């Protein structure tokens, strides 16, 4: 029995390959399995090479899987380009109307489109393929049927017919696989769960976290892969006092967030690199005038328009220093779906607490994954809000070296929130002493953000791995394997990238080598760590896809040896 099943549906955009993987994952999750999806597609509405991958497991999952147990492919190109990822002994299920595979010892050809058409259910071809995969991999077909029943019960008269049609399709696929007589090791039965689990996407986790954190206004401009979060907010942040708006550009978005934050609201936007690049000046204003707001940057391949639909972790430098002048914007980067939920809360809290902008650094592979996670424990949510000025300080908005009470328009304490250097009341001044005092103030305020948590294991080792963001999963899997093999390497991880938890930074400084797996060319976090006095070395990759665990393991091991 195997613990894992990794299935990839490969074809063209518009052929439902991403949807196929998600359907398979959802069905398996309903059947009790752990699941995680990953997909990749070009930036066009129809056509171009695309694939969706589902990992189904009897154990909790860290990554979408390096190698495929089953490759479902729609055309020759998909077969050729994805075959290298099929593990030895893996199976191919393919659209035999499109192309043929001569050697059918490990390949099942199915004329799924024709069969679906003939069954009068043309949309069901993906489900036929799923049936074949389930049969071949020993996934419980009855669990899938139960899922179909649930998924298509929408309280309409036609429900029963649609459900039956889809169940028929599933069974057709099962039959095809039986006919072919090819099978993998059976998948272990699904584990049983004593805590409630939700099936959730990364952007939903971010959005729900933001809602749990008390977000009141969300103003954004569409951009892949950040649009989904804006859309989720439009659909769900619907209370009478809430506001969701589509801006006319990212420049409008950031300036409007400054206005909304200034007006006393908890505010957020989601964007991607090109949008963030346009927000530098506005972020400077928020930093300067001390206005709380949160930008979610869902990283994609850069620079410029770059790779709009691919994953990358190359906006870190810009996130910390998005504009001119001295500033160091707080950055939080969730590494898992669960962290995505909690990171939004933390980001909103940080923004309110230090009164300034915070950047939540997500990435395509985090935002787009679907995963089963334990239902977040809402009793653990702690929401912070800025201290509102009661007027005791009169018009002095900025006093001393630490966060001061925030005067909310309409209430007492009228002042001018000013992007030029200013005195305590916000009026413009260019006096040297005041620029010194206020610059110190803006940086010292960051000290209130020293509560970031971190993970640390095998801390005795003087070589450690410290991944960030979505590279956490692959790095953790690689590290666990190395640990199991007796390689002595430590584990550190935090989603609080700037400022780093002070204890973490202190510990990292004592290490001989800190290996930083990150999906970019420059080794952005590693460079920053070196500037902080840590002996960091990046392990980079920039294909637009996540790290493979096996590659990372080999590279870490090489670096540990090479010490």
């Amino acid at each position, binding site marked *: 029995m195997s613990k894992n099943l990794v299935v990839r549906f490969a074809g063209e955009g518009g052929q439902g390959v991403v949807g196929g993987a998600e359907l398979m994952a959802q069905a398996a999750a309903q059947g009790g399995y752990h699941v995680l999806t990953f997909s990749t597609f070009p930036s066009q509405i129809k056509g171009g090479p695309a694939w969706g991958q589902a990992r189904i497991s009897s154990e909790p999952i860290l990554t979408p899987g390096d190698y495929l147990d089953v490759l479902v492919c729609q055309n020759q190109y998909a077969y050729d380009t994805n075959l290298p990822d099929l593990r030895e002994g893996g199976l191919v299920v393919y659209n035999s109307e499109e192309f043929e595979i001569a050697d059918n010892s490990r390949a099942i050809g199915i004329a799924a489109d024709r069969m679906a058409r003939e069954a009068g259910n043309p949309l069901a071809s993906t489900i036929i393929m799923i049936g074949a995969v389930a049969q071949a991999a020993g996934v419980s077909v009855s669990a899938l049927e139960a899922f179909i029943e649930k998924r298509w019960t929408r309280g309409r008269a036609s429900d029963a017919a649609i459900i039956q049609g889809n169940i028929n399709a599933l069974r057709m696929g099962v039959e095809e696989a039986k006919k072919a007589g090819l099978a993998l090791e059976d998948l272990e039965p699904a584990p049983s769960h004593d805590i409630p689990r939700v099936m959730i996407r990364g952007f939903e986790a971010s959005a729900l976290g933001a809602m749990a954190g008390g977000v009141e206004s969300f103003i954004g401009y569409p951009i892949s892969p950040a649009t989904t979060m804006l859309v989720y907010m439009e659909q769900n942040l619907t209370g009478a006092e809430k506001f969701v708006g589509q801006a*006319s550009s990212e420049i*409008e978005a950031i300036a409007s967030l400054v206005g909304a934050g200034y007006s006393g609201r908890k505010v957020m936007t989601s964007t991607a690199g090109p949008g963030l690049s346009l927000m530098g000046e506005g972020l400077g204003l928020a930093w300067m005038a001390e206005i709380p707001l949160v930008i979610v940057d869902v990283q994609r391949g850069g620079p410029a328009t770059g790779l709009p639909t691919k994953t990358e972790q190359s906006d870190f430098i810009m996130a910390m220093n998005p504009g001119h002048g001295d500033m160091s914007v707080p950055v939080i980067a969730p590494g898992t779906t669960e962290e995505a939920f909690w990171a939004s809360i933390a980001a909103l809290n940080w923004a309110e607490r230090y009164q300034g902008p915070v950047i939540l650094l997500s990435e395509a592979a985090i935002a787009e994954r679907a995963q*089963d996670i334990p239902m977040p424990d809402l009793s653990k949510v702690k929401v912070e809000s800025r201290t509102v000025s009661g007027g005791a300080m009169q018009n002095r908005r900025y006093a001393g070296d630490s966060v001061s009470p925030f005067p909310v328009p309409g209430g007492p304490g009228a002042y001018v929130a000013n992007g030029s250097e200013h005195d305590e009341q916000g009026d413009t001044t260019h006096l040297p002493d005041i620029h010194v005092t206020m610059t110190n103030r803006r940086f010292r305020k960051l000290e209130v953000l020293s509560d970031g948590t971190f993970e640390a294991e095998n801390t005795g080792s003087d070589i450690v791995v410290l991944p960030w963001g979505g590279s956490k999963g692959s790095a953790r899997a690689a590290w666990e394997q190395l640990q199991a093999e007796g390689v002595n390497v430590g584990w550190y991880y935090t989603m609080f990238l700037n400022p780093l938890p002070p204890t973490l930074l202190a510990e990292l400084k004592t290490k001989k080598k800190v290996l930083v797996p990150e999906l970019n060319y420059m080794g952005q976090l590693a460079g920053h760590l070196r500037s902080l006095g840590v002996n960091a070395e990046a392990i980079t990759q920039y294909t637009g896809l996540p790290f493979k665990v096996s590659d990372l393991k080999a590279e870490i091991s090489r670096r540990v040896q090479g010490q």
Partner: protein
Amino acid sequence: MSKRNPLYDFKWCPGCGDFGVKVAIEQALAQRTAERGDSIEKTVIVAGIGCSGNLVHLQEGPQPFGIHGIHGRTLPVAYGIKSGRPDLNVLVVSGDGDFLSIGAEHIGPQARRNLDVTVVVMDNGIYGLTKGQASPTTNVDVVTSTTRYGKLDEKMNPYLFFLGAGVGYLNSQMSSRVKDLAAAIKAAMDYPGFSIVHVQSPCTTYNDTYALLKGDEKQGIEPLAFPIPDSHDAGDLIAAVNLVRTNRIPIGQIYRREGESVPGHERLARAKVNAGVGQASVEELLTGMLITA
């Protein structure tokens, strides 16, 4: 200078048109607060960067809130403020460079949202604070530090631009006529929706157009500015376009769109009521995602 900050000492040049605008705004706000029994702290002045923008620090008497942001972004800041705080009275002050050059993209969106704010544009046909470069409203052929052959670009017609962008309420004034200006600003603030009061506010240092605007008999200059005749139908778009299409400057109410003006926040509030949506709690939303295996 201001009540809030007597130490603050920014200065405009002698004769600068912006003085008149400042006084007019003080008067209009005083009148508004008195009328409504509102506190002045319910008003936010959103300022751009330019000599004009410094107005926000110079308000004398009771002090409104202010935000003096970055160049060209007054309108989006105002949009953000109003988005969640429709209760606030938001007054935007901006210059011709700030509003019509780098900030021009923001006008259409607010017009279409019918954002309930009032804009006072202080048009001096020049970049004052950066010491005299051509702005969109600098007259053709004028030599400035960046137009050594005289200005070659056509002059922007801000009135026509506003009408084309869908602005529903447009008034044109001169900074030297403080009383009229105060009344126009007050009326624009009372209008439920997006309103612009476009003010000719000459820059005595870099582009002194007082004589051009008011005319000068001695020099034989016909005044560019003229009062809008009573016969003008401000509800008629075509009449408004006709009024503004030459390069003369009409003074008075140019346009006020017919029909009820429903500001953006009101549209949203009504839509939410119509759709019958409330706010699902995070718990409810998560529960909808429960795996019920």
